[in-house]
């Protein structure tokens, strides 16, 4: 129990085979009191949520809602070992994301035909995919852009590593392939299992990233259109997104999507609201660039899951629509500058500077904190955080309105994951090595999501280039949403083996090397 970073054996907090931790971390008086106050805040958010009878009703209707019992533990996992500014940055982000998800759930259940059945509200709802850039909603401030998949699968797996297993099994019971990506498979499983809220004037689906995504969307849209009577638009963004010749087609898809929403909701596109959102997107981009700039120096500040989880939420799901995220960006940047000026570190020793590439294991997002605490490997940035930095037009002029359509198309093409897993060799392979140089990294942690066909084809090419450049390349296999295939310890073992056999190093915190957390949330 210590104030100093890295003085504790964090593995001692785990109970062998347990679902939860023995106790919370003592971080010294000031940081413990801060963490305690934020825990109280989370409890207040959850308390406010369950005060509404319809939310309690939903808790007893939807299987995935049980995962929300684990909300405080998710925060504990991501704040593990953190002190000072790093702890505060993590809470700024996580607590805001929790509030935003609570609002999302509340809205879903308000309009849900089975729960709140507020039909007037439902007419203002546009459903979107979980893994979809929400740029086409930037000009509809009076409509509610809601994703059913975000709370049922995406957030659920962050909360509980086993959350998607039931739905993956349901999808496979109905004959869907077992080797497809478990994320869209679980989303399809939720729909097949009749476990998705039913609401909305219309839905926009996107050809996200892969064959699995198309499969999942097909299953979901069939039920939405034929059973629930909710029309669905398929936003097919080009995969070769760096090519000039696809941009006009991409822009036309955006125009069509906007026209579809206008037709089914009766609400007209609002340019003033769009440009206001564009201004916030630009601000978020500038902040992210400043954090990444710091991460190129010996004193990185916003990195690991502090960078990854927040970027995913802010860039794709929020996309300038929620002013609270702009305020959070400002506070995070202030904390990061403060720590940078004092040359602060998040662990007692930084041994390796790593770029984390590929699609991360979703059931083990706090692995990035583990890398730092156990082995002193600093995850400077990750593939999903290296998204578009293009400045959007902010001023409302006739020319800018036309450019804005292309800006939205660009964002949609460059949504998280697909901007790297598709678009050619350069975005996935070449730019990785450019980043290793820019960030002065000596190591690449390369996630090999075994069901992701987009990445497996390049395995040998990654190895060849890493060898040429003298970069330590550590492969980490996983199956994204399914810890039954490779467990969290299975993930850790791949790092442990590399660090011991190739690097001949001892861990900074040996208590974290082997953890019996297979039953844990």
């Amino acid at each position, binding site marked *: 129990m210590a104030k100093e970073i890295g003085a504790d054996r964090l593995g001692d907090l785990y109970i062998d085979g347990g*679902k939860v931790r023995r106790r919370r971390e*003592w971080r010294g008086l000031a940081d413990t009191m801060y963490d305690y106050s934020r825990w109280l805040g989370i409890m207040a958010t959850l308390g406010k949520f369950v005060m509404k009878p319809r939310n309690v009703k939903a808790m*007893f209707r939807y*299987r995935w809602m*049980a995962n929300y019992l684990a909300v405080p533990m998710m925060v504990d996992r991501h704040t593990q070992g953190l002190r000072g500014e790093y702890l505060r940055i993590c809470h700024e982000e996580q607590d805001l994301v929790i509030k935003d998800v609570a609002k999302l759930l509340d809205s879903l259940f308000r309009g849900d035909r089975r729960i709140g059945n507020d039909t007037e509200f439902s007419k203002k709802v546009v459903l979107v995919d979980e893994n979809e850039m929400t740029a086409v909603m930037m000009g509809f401030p009076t409509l509610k852009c809601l994703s059913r998949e975000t709370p049922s699968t995406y957030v659920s797996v962050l909360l509980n590593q086993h959350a998607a297993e039931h739905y993956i099994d349901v999808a496979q019971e109905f004959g869907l392939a077992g080797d497809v990506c478990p994320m869209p498979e679980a989303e399809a499983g939720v729909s097949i299992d*009749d476990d998705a809220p039913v609401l909305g004037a219309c839905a926009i689906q996107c050809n996200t990233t892969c064959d699995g995504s198309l499969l999942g969307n097909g299953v979901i849209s069939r039920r939405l259109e034929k059973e629930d009577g909710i029309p669905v638009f398929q936003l097919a963004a080009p995969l070769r997104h760096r090519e000039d010749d696809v941009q006009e087609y991409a822009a036309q898809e955006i125009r069509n999507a906007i026209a579809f929403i206008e037709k089914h909701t009766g609400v007209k596109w609002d340019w003033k609201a769009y440009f206001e959102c564009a201004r916030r997107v630009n601000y978020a981009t500038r902040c992210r660039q400043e954090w990444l700039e710091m991460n190129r120096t010996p004193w990185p500040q916003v990195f690991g899951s502090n960078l990854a989880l927040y970027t995913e939420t802010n860039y794709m799901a929020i996309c300038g629509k929620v002013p609270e995220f702009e305020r959070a960006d400002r506070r995070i940047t202030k904390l990061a500058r403060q720590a940078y000026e004092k040359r602060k570190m998040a662990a007692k020793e930084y041994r390796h500077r790593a770029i984390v590439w590929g699609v991360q294991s979703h059931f083990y997002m706090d692995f990035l904190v583990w890398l730092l605490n156990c082995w002193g490997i600093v995850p400077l940035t990750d593939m999903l955080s290296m998204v578009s930095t293009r400045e959007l037009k902010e001023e409302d002029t006739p020319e800018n309105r036309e450019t804005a359509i292309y800006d939205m198309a660009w964002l949609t093409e460059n949504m998280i994951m697909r901007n790297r897993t598709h678009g050619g060799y350069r975005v996935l392979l070449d730019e990785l090595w450019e980043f290793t140089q820019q960030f002065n990294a000596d190591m690449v942690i390369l996630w090999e999501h075994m069901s992701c066909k987009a990445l497996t084809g390049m395995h040998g090419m990654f190895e060849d280039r890493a060898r040429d450049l003298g970069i330590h390349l550590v492969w980490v296999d996983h199956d994204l949403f399914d810890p039954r295939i490779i467990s969290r310890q299975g993930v850790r073992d791949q790092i442990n083996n590399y660090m011991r056999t190739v690097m001949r190093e001892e861990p900074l915190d040996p208590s974290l090397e082997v953890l019996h957390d297979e039953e844990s949330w």
Partner: protein
Amino acid sequence: MSKPVKILLKLLLVALGLFAVTFTVYILNLDMKLTAAIEPFLQKHYDTIERNRHL
């Protein structure tokens, strides 16, 4: 002791009591231990819900 001081003292005692209880729950992770105990019952309940399962 004057009345306002007594009220203040009582408020302070209540605040201290609340702090002691909530901090104990926080540091010993009792909230998560409780919800972990509830979860299996919820799972059994979900299995009993009738569903229209199909592709």
